[in-house]
């Protein structure tokens, strides 16, 4: 039988599964063992069921206005317990530093006085909002939810590619990927102990409630969506459903007297925390784009008055600007007095003439990224670009160097992926999600692994023909003092239990063998020949 992984090519990049041909890395040992005996066709058949499950559940991603299924690859990505502990520490560290930085930017500005970051970098950022200055959130948290994009370089080290502190999307796919995989391929999970992801909504809800204005005893949380045509609408709906809160649109909210309320059948109901998935520019027509019809007028003033919490906070974009990204290691040292756990990708700022000239001279060997782009838009990969693209790029870079950063290309790691019934290597990245509730930064174990499905493609993004993989974090042994999942416990001793649960009622004993035999004889006599087979047709039910 042809081996599923036969002829799996290993390139120069780090491969997630194999250290050497047919030699799986330790975290993959179990998965390799269960997948290897399967044939390509069998796996492909399972993959069909998997995508059917996704279609039925309506797991979609709207791309260019059209709803499309978000492809889920059948081969999971596995991360070992130690490796994960490292990522977890690094992500939490980064979130702490960026929180401190944002508090500083919209507060005292000590970081500029100490000349760690030039003030001009902030004031020229498109996402710096003066309207947010001096707005201190109730529990000090601005980055309630963040997604830190990581890639693994050729040496196998994780590096940060970018930070997302505004409204990172993709966490719903983490939840649905796991649910679909456990339905379609339960046996793959058999030999593993994998950390669960299903408690993300409850963690998020707890963090949102913790951020409510302090006077509120039982805060009302809502999720604010731009509407059903937004690319991440599926996610907004899923999170609202799993948190048991209302999913509102801008027109459902009304702000008067510094208080935000939603219109309900019982009249207006107070809203305390808005988990908004609308960009700053559209959130509040009073302060930002006055033509926005999807926001809620006055919400920012209500937040400033301390009557409502906006999560994530307004103006976070200034800290996930790709230019600020280049300073994050310094920020970690400055605010936390620690060395960064996760390194950045090697990046060049175009902040003086020499650097700009050097970059322009080496455009064909660098990756150029626009600083405020997202979703892989506008990225030019030098080694793969043609002459014309590079020429156009040079003009743009020369015009406004502030808008660009340059990075050395990283040979993203590959992971085995099912392509046309064969397993082939495809490039992957990883977006872990972190939730900050003010006392603790919790990192969802796993996060979203995105995979670039076209061969050799390096831009791994769902808006550029990407898929995803279920991401498994191997669990360590159970901690001795594992916190009980329930806050209040109903406890019983075994003495409380009934000796033996009663059996289920068996049903009437109406299959009287004698009568059945006689009925058959009757019919046989009436319609000779045919009745026998006719009876047998339906008569097998009882067996």
């Amino acid at each position, binding site marked *: 039988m042809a081996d599923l992984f036969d002829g799996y090519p290993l390139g120069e990049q780090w491969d997630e599964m194999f250290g050497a041909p047919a030699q799986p890395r330790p975290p993959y040992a179990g998965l390799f063992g269960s997948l290897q005996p399967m044939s390509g066709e069998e796996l492909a058949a399972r993959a069909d069921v998997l995508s059917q499950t996704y279609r039925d559940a309506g797991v979609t991603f709207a791309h260019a206005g059209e709803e499309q299924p978000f492809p889920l690859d059948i081969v999971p990505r596995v991360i070992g317990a130690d490796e994960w502990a490292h990522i977890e520490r690094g992500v939490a560290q980064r979130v702490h530093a960026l929180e401190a930085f944002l508090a500083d930017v919209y507060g005292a500005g000590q970081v500029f006085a100490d000349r760690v970051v030039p003030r001009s970098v902030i004031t020229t950022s498109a996402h710096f909002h003066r309207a947010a200055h001096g707005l201190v959130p109730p529990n000090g948290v601005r980055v309630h939810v963040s997604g830190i994009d990581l890639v693994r370089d050729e040496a196998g080290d994780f590096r940060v590619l970018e930070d997302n502190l505004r409204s990172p999307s993709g966490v719903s796919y983490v939840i649905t990927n796991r649910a679909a995989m456990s339905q379609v391929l339960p046996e793959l999970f058999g030999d593993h102990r994998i950390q669960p992801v299903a408690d993300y909504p409850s963690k998020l809800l707890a963090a949102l*409630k913790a951020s409510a204005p302090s006077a509120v005893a039982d805060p*009302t949380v809502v999720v604010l969506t731009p509407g059903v045509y937004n690319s991440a609408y599926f996610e907004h709906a899923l999170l609202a459903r799993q948190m*048991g809160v209302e999913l509102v649109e801008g027109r459902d909210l009304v702000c008067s007297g510094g208080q935000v309320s939603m219109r309900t059948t019982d009249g207006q109901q107070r809203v305390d925390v808005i988990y908004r998935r609308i960009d700053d520019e559209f959130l509040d027509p009073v302060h930002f784009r006055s033509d926005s019809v999807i926001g809620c007028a006055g919400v920012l003033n209500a937040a400033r008055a301390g009557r409502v919490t906006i999560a994530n906070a307004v103006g976070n974009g200034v800290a996930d600007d790709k230019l600020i990204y280049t300073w994050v290691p310094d920020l970690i040292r400055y605010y936390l007095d620690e060395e960064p756990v996760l390194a950045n990708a090697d990046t060049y700022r175009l902040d003086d003439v020499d650097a700009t000239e050097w970059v322009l001279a080496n455009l064909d060997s660098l990756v150029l990224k626009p600083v405020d782009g997202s979703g892989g838009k506008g990225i030019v990969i030098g080694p793969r670009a043609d002459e014309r693209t590079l020429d156009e790029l040079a003009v743009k870079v020369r015009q406004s160097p502030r808008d660009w950063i340059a990075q050395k290309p990283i040979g993203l790691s590959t992971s085995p992926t099912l392509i046309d019934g064969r397993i082939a290597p495809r490039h992957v990245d990883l977006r872990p999600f972190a939730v900050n509730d003010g006392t603790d930064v919790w990192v969802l174990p796993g996060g979203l692994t995105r995979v670039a499905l076209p061969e050799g493609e390096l831009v791994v993004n769902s808006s550029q023909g990407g898929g995803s993989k279920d991401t498994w974090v191997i669990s360590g042994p159970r901690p001795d003092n594992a916190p009980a999942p329930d806050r209040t416990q109903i406890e019983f001793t075994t003495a409380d239990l009934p000796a033996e649960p009663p059996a289920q009622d068996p049903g009437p004993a109406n299959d009287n063998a004698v009568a059945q035999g006689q009925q058959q004889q009757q019919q046989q006599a009436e319609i000779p020949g045919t009745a026998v087979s006719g009876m047998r047709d339906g008569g097998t039910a009882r067996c």
Partner: protein
Amino acid sequence: MLSRIAESLFWIGRYVERADDTARILDVHTQRLVEDPWIDEQRACHNLLALMGVPCALEEADTERVLATLAFDRVAPSSIVGALSAARENARGAREVLSAEIWESLNVTHNALPQQRTMARRYGPHSLYRFVRERSAMVFGLADATMSRDESWLFLILGRSLERVDMTSRMLSTRVLAGDAAPSWTLVLRSTGAYEPYLRTYRGAVNSSRAAEFLLLDRLFPRSVFAALEQAEGCLAELERSNVRDGHRIGVSGEAHRIVGRARTMLEFMGTDEILAKLPTRLDELQRTCSAASEAVTSRFFTEQAPQVWVPEGVG
């Protein structure tokens, strides 16, 4: 209507509901084995089997055994396949009162079982659970849309409600059976289809006494024990209505009505704390209530004479 037909309808209601609930419970059980990193599989399977009234030795308990007993057993009425076959068999004897659509739906379900079984072997059991849930929804949906609200409807719904009381209280018992192998309240809620309604009702994290309260006492959620008891009581009151006209003035006339009503009032008027304090006993009582009520319904409405065999008298 004929007692025999009434009995068939009652049991169609029970069997279809049982298949539906068992499928939900098994689905969550399978998912739990996958998702909970610290689960003790053997103990969890052992508990589940004991709870469903088909205990086996601890060392023999595993997922294979659970599936064989609760999903694929073709004879036992406590397995999904067994219950659906039994429902279809009952429907076959009551074809003249069932609408053609309901009969067809049950028959199609039954005919598809072997294929579903093969599918489940190849692609994992989830497809079977899903199939069963959809088919039972279809049966009850067709009943709702095509049956007159006469006695036949009442018996069908009575059966369904009593089975629901039984299954929901069994599900609650899984949690109460405690120990490391107990599923979380979230899972208990999910396996009764109550997770999302619960979240919307309490807008927040799952908390054990609230979850137990929701599954036992919620008036609006149709799978709660209370709502199911109330529905069963309603059916029984309708079925016995003629007795009121005939001048019964004290209490209720039927034994089943009395049993169900007592259980319902116990839940309704006893303090929540009091119920939760003795939850295991209460749940056990509820399961026994169902059996007792079912027996009472049987003896009141379905009395059937054992077939008599006439033996010719011997000559002198």
